[in-house]
């Protein structure tokens, strides 16, 4: 009998995959699912049948994740698909996005929650324009770890010099983009070399296999050292005899941690109070951490509502301002309207805003700033400023991915049209190569 309880304390890791068409992304995902035994027989049989139908002898692992390919051929939605697998150490969520130029918005979506970005590079082609674009997105979305998987090593005879040349070239990109933690792995997704098991064909490679790396990379270690942030989501008032005076502020901790007894400030009103209890489901705890969903009770009967933010009093406070400067990835067919009004959602807060200015667009292939063309179309990334009707309470995206991000919603169609990453000063984010 297996040790069932062992499975109860796995960690969760979210990663995104990026690569150009035919770099082997589907094959790699299929390989990870297959080798970790996350594929069921009925699924495998379907893939075997399909492989045969398409004239292949071997099982084509790429077909396992082929929801997207079918769509591509039919010319319909190309989108982010989520896939799941687990090993005894971790549960993984893969955000799988197609790598076409038109789909920057999908990559941004997939990258927004990722702890790790896997960037695939075809060993034969080396670093191409698309690899740079994927790296820029990993940097823009502040993905803490980037794995550069040099694939199809079998087609270059597992040649160390080919791998090293790619590593050397990529290092300059990583530096320019200020990528945080970059790891390089030579793999063959088709044959499995260095994916799950160490390859005998790369004796010159001393690093980890891809799966081992994914199982052991520290996840979100810094989150609890961030200044404590608690966007209020919902006010819980039972109005029952038993809980007559109960008034709790429900939400998800978005940075740092809170303890019973902490002195806190409620923003934007600047009211001070103290935490008297932290409830998590049916029980009370003394301390809670990012990203737990809890309910906080305060000593004083202060006026707190959805959209407010509770922060610790003695720490670095978020900026409270109606003028927001951000990098935006535009998601909609209708271009950004300068001077136009939009709805902004930021944490649990919502307000209206007017777009003040477009400062520059980023050419994500050359990473140069474009100053003369300020039309922001779908898939464009631009630096803009906006003014909100009521002040937001925010950090820069660099400091905190939750309190530093927002989405822009069209007032008429209610579609989500823009994804914004708040910047404090432009220097942080203007890259050039």
């Amino acid at each position, binding site marked *: *009998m297996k040790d*069932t309880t062992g*499975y*109860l304390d*796995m*960690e*969760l890791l979210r990663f995104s995959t990026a690569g150009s068409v035919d770099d082997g992304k589907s094959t790699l995902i299929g390989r990870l699912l297959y080798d970790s035994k996350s594929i*069921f*027989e*009925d*699924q495998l049989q379907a893939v075997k049948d399909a492989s045969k139908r398409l004239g292949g002898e071997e099982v084509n692992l790429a077909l396992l994740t082929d*929801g997207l390919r079918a769509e591509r051929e039919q010319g*319909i*939605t190309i989108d*982010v*698909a*989520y*896939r*799941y697998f*687990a090993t005894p150490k971790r*549960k993984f969520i893969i955000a799988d996005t197609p790598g076409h130029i038109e789909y920057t*918005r999908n990559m*941004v*979506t997939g990258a*927004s*929650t990722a702890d790790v970005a896997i960037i695939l590079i075809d060993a034969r082609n080396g670093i191409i324009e698309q690899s740079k674009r994927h790296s820029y997105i990993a940097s823009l979305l502040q993905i803490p770890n980037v794995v550069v998987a040099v694939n199809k090593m079998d087609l270059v005879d597992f040649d160390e010099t080919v791998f090293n040349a790619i590593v050397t070239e990529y290092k300059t990109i990583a530096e320019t983009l200020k990528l945080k933690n970059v790891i390089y792995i030579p793999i063959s997704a088709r044959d499995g070399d260095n994916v799950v098991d160490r390859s005998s064909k790369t004796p010159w490679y001393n690093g980890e296999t891809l799966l081992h790396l994914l199982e052991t990379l520290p996840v979100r270690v810094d989150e*609890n050292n961030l200044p404590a942030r608690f966007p209020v*989501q*919902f006010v819980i*008032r*039972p*109005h*029952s005899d*038993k*809980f007559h005076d*109960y008034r709790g502020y*429900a*939400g*998800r901790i978005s940075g740092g*941690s809170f303890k019973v007894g902490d002195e806190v400030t409620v923003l934007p009103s600047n009211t001070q109070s103290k935490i008297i209890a932290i*409830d998590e*489901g*049916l029980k009370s705890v003394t*301390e809670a*951490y990012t*990203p*737990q*969903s809890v309910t906080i009770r305060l000593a004083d009967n202060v006026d707190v509502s959805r959209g407010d933010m509770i922060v610790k009093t003695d720490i670095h406070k978020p900026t409270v301002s109606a003028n927001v400067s951000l990098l935006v990835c535009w998601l909609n067919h209708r271009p950004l309207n300068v001077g136009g009004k939009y709805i902004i*959602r*930021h*944490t649990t807060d919502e307000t209206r805003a007017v777009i003040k200015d477009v400062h520059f667009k980023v050419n994500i292939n050359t990473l140069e700033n474009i100053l003369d063309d300020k039309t922001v179309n779908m898939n464009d990334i631009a630096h803009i400023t906006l003014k909100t009707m009521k002040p937001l309470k925010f950090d820069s995206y660099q400091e905190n*991915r*939750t309190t530093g*991000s927002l*989405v822009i*919603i069209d007032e008429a169609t*209610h*579609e*989500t049209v823009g*994804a914004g990453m708040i910047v404090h000063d432009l220097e942080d984010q203007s890259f050039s190569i």
Partner: protein
Amino acid sequence: MQEKLTHLKELESESIFILREVAAQFEKPALLFSGGKDSIVMAYLAYKAFYPAPIPFPFVHIDTGHNFDETLTYRDELVKKLGAELIVGSVQESIDSGRAVEEKGFNASRNKLQTITLLDTLEKYKFDAALGGARRDEEKARAKERFFSHRDEFGQWDPKNQRPELWNIFNGKKHLGEHFRVFPISNWTEMDVWQYILQENIPLPSLYYTHEREVFNRDCQWYAALDAIPRRPTEEVVVKKVRCRTIGDITCTGLSLSTANSLEDIIDEIASSRITERGGRTDDKRSESAMEDRKKEGYF
């Protein structure tokens, strides 16, 4: 220093966040309760999310009339225990009133008719968000489903017009007459659900554990030998030790041969299982793109 957040804690925290977003963003949400283990987990998550206040939305059960008796008993007890309100939408009524037409033949199922009753029920009570227990790992077509899934005024899902969902920001804005389906446990797998049931000690209908039952085999799948499923003369009734891996309407709930009689046994069984849970659901087998078709029509 704190202990590492486990995957179950993190999934729970995410789901509770979404349940609270729904309560905050919508005027009249409802939780679709099918009696299956996923919706049982959802019910418990909702209880936790708003405790000590009552769950701020009712449970809606779309009753095909073809239930295992136990499902209904369990449902009624659960609703009482959690202090929730229950609304039942009846497929039989939809048939009687001519809104739905019963399928004929041996493979007849009311599963498809549920969509009509569901949409009628949502409209009748003016629900603007329906919480469902679907998971992205269940089926290819669900892999790209959003947490907040927008439906037009006909209740239809338009795969080409889904709103991008970034970070943990959920956009539930809608026009009059439109509504949302929301899937708080999207990121859970079948294994996560079972592990959570074990961790939280959630009582389940005994159908999930091994029991002796009169069954018959059709297309390599075992079904309960009950009146709701007409049998062909060649389909012989035998007694087997079986359990349900997922429970829905009787006509599409496949039973697996199993001797698992505890949650630990079930988890072991799933860990070594080589067939997906939906592999046992007839409704998905009807055609390759079965699920996608039903989704477009407004199925859960």
